[in-house]
């Protein structure tokens, strides 16, 4: 499984440009964020973005998780893609941070992807997904 997508709309054909290029040119609708780039710079431009691709050069570098949540918290509704060294055991956390598409460098086993994403029915905390934290279930 190369690309993994959890959206109903058509995938965008336009390639993602760098953050610098995006901020310089007004017509791009897809941008790529490196781990050290500030996702908040995109907030004024969210309405013209269809794709934000967040780079994971190393799976251990967790900055992209914060970038993703920041964009979702700011109301970004477009595609949010994790690209790079993305491992199957990270998909659940990434989905919870708001990623809805994945372009892993090494293909993932679809069966393991399904088991991994279906495994947990409960979560302890609110994040960028729709999952209801257990404290909410406890107290309504």
């Amino acid at each position, binding site marked *: 499984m190369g690309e993994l997508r959890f959206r109903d709309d058509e995938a965008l054909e336009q390639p993602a440009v760098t953050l610098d290029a995006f901020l310089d040119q007004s017509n791009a609708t897809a941008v790529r964020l490196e781990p050290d780039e500030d996702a908040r710079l995109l907030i004024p431009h969210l309405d013209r973005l269809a794709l934000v691709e967040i780079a994971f050069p190393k799976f251990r570098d*967790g900055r992209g*998780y914060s970038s993703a949540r920041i964009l979702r918290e700011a109301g970004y509704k477009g595609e949010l893609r994790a690209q790079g060294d993305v491992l199957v*055991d*990270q998909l659940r956390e990434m989905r*919870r941070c708001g990623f809805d598409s994945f372009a892993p460098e090494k293909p993932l086993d679809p069966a*393991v992807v399904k088991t991994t994403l279906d495994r947990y029915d*409960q979560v302890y905390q*609110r994040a960028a997904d729709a999952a209801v934290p257990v404290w909410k279930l406890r107290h309504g």
Partner: protein
Amino acid sequence: MYKYDQYDQAIVDARVDEFRDQVRRRMAGEITEDQFKPLRLMNGLYLQLHAYMLRVAIPYGTLDSRQMHMLAHIARKYDRDYGHFTTRQNIQYNWIKLEDAGDILADLATVEMHAIQTSGNCIRNISSDQYAGAAADEVADPRPWAELLRQWSTFHPEFSYLPRKFKIAVIASDEDRAAMRLHDIGIQLVERDGKLGAAFYVGGGMGRTPMVAPLIKDFVPIEDFLSYAEACLRVYNRYGRRDNIYKARIKILIHELGADEYRRQVEQEFAHVKSLGIDPPAAELERITAFFAPPAFEAGAADTVDRSDPDFAVWLDQNVKAHKQPGYAIVNISLKPVGGIPGDASSAQIDVMADLAEQYSFDELRVTHAQNIVLPHVAKRDLYAVWQKLVEADLASPNLDLISDIIACPGLDYCSLANARSIPVAQKIAQRFSDLDRQRTLGELKLKISGCINACGHHHAGHIGILGVDRKGTENYQLLLGGSGAEDTSLGKITGPGFDEDGVVDAIERVTDKYLELREGGERFLDTYRRVGFDPFKEAIYG
């Protein structure tokens, strides 16, 4: 004590299934060791010098007899019949087989236990005051707040790949029994205008660059508690250094930014995070707090103890502490017999402690960061019976906070990071000072040994600290003086050139002799050191 509901249990059960699957994929070669490493680490499974080591979480150091018996069962069935209690109030097993890990987790899950986030670059087990709920000086029991943090931090999706590990301690007394300001976040519950809140100290730690955490926020009310923690962590996850593993802890970020700038960034992030609705309603803290209601103490229980047995009286004076409830006491069980390995207990001893808790301490035990065990609520009339049973089990060493009550990391006997052995040094020191009268004459003296600069043995915080290093292929021990992990937190200072194993024991003896010569009145070693300074001791050591 906190009890799982169906949600807590479902999460821990799913974790067992997940880890079994990860182990299966690793053993089938579907994932590489490099990819498996962070997964097993987030579940407390380390590859050590000789075998896998599994660290089991004991949230805020509290457990009941059923859980304690399970720890004995695991030692017996899957390890070599003993376990090692750690400075983070956990237990670790040193001889685990990878293929058994899933079964061990399944056994643990039957008693509401797990190994989640006991390692890895994530938020670790929350630690606390071992006297919580029993200490007269606390403003509240800190454990409900620690449990809130445990749940919030468990599988936190944003903070599972932090720059480095992250340790949080929660206390609620002015007397600090948990080395709170030597944590990434140290929280002290405080009262203001009749309302409870959390003071946040952020950016402390030991390791190769020890730092005492500065106060970042003096009062965070419960309704903002998790939002504030989230803001602290988000600033760290985004801006903590990732270029150098040795500079990746939050203390370095705060040191480089300055506490004021870090605070400004956290406040800014908090203003945003607060709008996300991540704080549970007050009813959730109330629900958790109900589990920590005081046990059914007997009103009017006898407040006197028969001291006619002199050995018992010695233990009573050294290991038993005042309880807030008249007629009750806090019993410390020392895991530091002379010649033993600090923090180790056999499965038979673990079972004895579990039985004592069930019979005499309202079914509760605590693990302390000094690697001892506490029976928090023992009726004074039962103390003699408890002591007799401890004597039978070789658990009655009357040396709490004395020089032989040593904190030591596993060192080069087990650990793949260590440069030197810690255990034999601890044993030699305990043997040199084995005369109890001599130890009692020296009084409170906290001695802490680490086998490398990562400081798992808290050497920076020892009144006397020892750091094992590798010097041209031989083990060498540096001596530090003047550290403290208590409310008067301070970092020890290295005395000078290091020693070999016997040499460092001799040097400690020169330090304690000097102390006895210089002390005034009821001064502890640390008080004398602070009054007279470093030089007289340095002179005594090196001549």
